């Protein structure tokens, strides 16, 4: 069934997806808030940049990240100047690549949730002398909760399933960069179809369970909300 290296890949994948989801919620929420409210001329270009990973083939994105984060790339020069070395072939290299790759999946649902509220709730809060900070924490964010939950689920699931980018900048190092998708690919390429089937099956069951429980949670929450509202 599952070997030790399979389990290692599973553990690494969970660690990566959790880290990336947490960071994306932290970075993506302010970005989504800004995109939802701004009248700046930068709104269009920034939205387009955020959505770009949806269009670029992952292996292409990975290839350019390899150059960008490499010893001669701008980011590589920067991380080397900080004494951090270069990022490809490390866990944190994967984290950064995944942040970029999963960004639209987190920003867009949150942005939609904030936009669909309209300006009304924030305006009402302002007439009640709520500061912008208070309004954000106690009005905008709670109202956007379903969108944030969706963003978290999509960001997590997308990072778990990521393959092309990781294959390109990961270097296939056990315990460091060999995630489940790469491990399955390895099995297939080595003609070890039985192991590939087992690992794929566990990945599908796990992903389904996570998605189902989050959707059920979301459903129950909104049901509770309705009851209170009525």
């Amino acid at each position, binding site marked *: 069934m599952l070997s030790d290296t399979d389990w290692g890949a599973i553990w690494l994948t969970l660690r990566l997806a959790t880290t990336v989801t947490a960071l994306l919620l932290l970075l993506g929420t302010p970005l989504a808030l800004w995109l939802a409210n701004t009248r700046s001329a930068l709104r269009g270009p920034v939205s387009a940049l955020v959505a770009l990973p949806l269009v670029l083939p992952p292996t292409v994105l990975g290839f350019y990240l*390899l150059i960008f984060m490499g010893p001669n790339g701008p980011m590589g020069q920067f991380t080397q100047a900080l004494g951090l070395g270069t990022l490809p072939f490390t866990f944190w290299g994967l984290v950064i690549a995944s942040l970029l790759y999963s960004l639209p999946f987190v920003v867009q649902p949150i942005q939609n949730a904030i936009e669909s509220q309209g300006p009304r709730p924030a305006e009402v809060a302002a007439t009640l002398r709520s500061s912008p900070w208070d309004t954000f924490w106690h009005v905008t964010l709670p109202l956007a909760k379903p969108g944030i939950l969706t963003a978290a689920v999509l960001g997590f699931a997308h990072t778990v399933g990521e393959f092309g980018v990781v*294959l390109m900048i990961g*270097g296939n190092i056990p315990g460091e960069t060999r995630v489940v998708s790469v491990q399955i690919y*390895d099995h297939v*390429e080595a*003609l070890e179809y039985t192991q590939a089937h087992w690992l794929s099956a566990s990945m599908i069951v796990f992903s389904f369970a996570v998605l189902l429980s989050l959707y059920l949670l979301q459903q129950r929450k909104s049901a509770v909300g309705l009851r209170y509202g009525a």
Partner: protein
Amino acid sequence: MSALALVGGLFALFIPTAARAEEFTLAVASNFTTPMQAIAAKFEARTGHKVNLASGSSGKLFAQIRHGAPFDAFFSADQVKPSRLVALELAKGSTLFTYANGTLVLWSSHADLVDGQGSVLNTGRYKKLAIANPRLAPYGIAAVEALQSLGIEQSSRARRVQGENISQTYQFVATGNADLGLVALSQLMRNGRLSRGSAWIVPQSLYRPIRQDAVILNRGVDSPALAEFWAFFSGPEVQEILASFGYTADFSPEKAEKAEKAEKAEKSHVE
């Protein structure tokens, strides 16, 4: 009458050319794609036949062939997969032959890092050494064997990164993310010269030969054009192209015998 003549004329236009110029599709391991493009172009110019190329990693192509991919022949990066297709009765054993012999090179994109003896491996003055995944790529197996022969397989482990195939390994080194890599000579040779950086050709005595086999698949068995291509492959033109890419050709005369042996050996462990 004139309509009939027109139809007749149209037939005359299409039928003879269709009978003469044939089309076939080759599944080619990614490491051999560039030389194969040159070879196919020569063959097309010579015969008027049309050669389609489908490239990918050998494992992926193998899986696709097993599931009915419309390929007429398979140029693998190793010897195992063509033999297994013969054993699975998806390919014709008598057509099996070794079309190329790969050469392993220690390479850096820095002009002065690799010296003529490859001693940089022993001094350890490097950060990352890229090799192809030994579970998947013949060049990866050869790389590990060479490191073992040099007695540094264990000590180099912490600094090793693995490419999924030999082209990804090449990318790691070309982008400078790995300062050293064990790659294929065919990737570095352009018109018989080293394209850039510094390199050490790893002596053949340090690893077992990297032999790449080709076989005609069931779909292409009756194609005269493909048979022509097989004959063309051992000719001087192809040999010249192979040499310019750093491959040493290896046409074993006992190919039929080898195929028979492979058939027997492989039949035992087929799923």
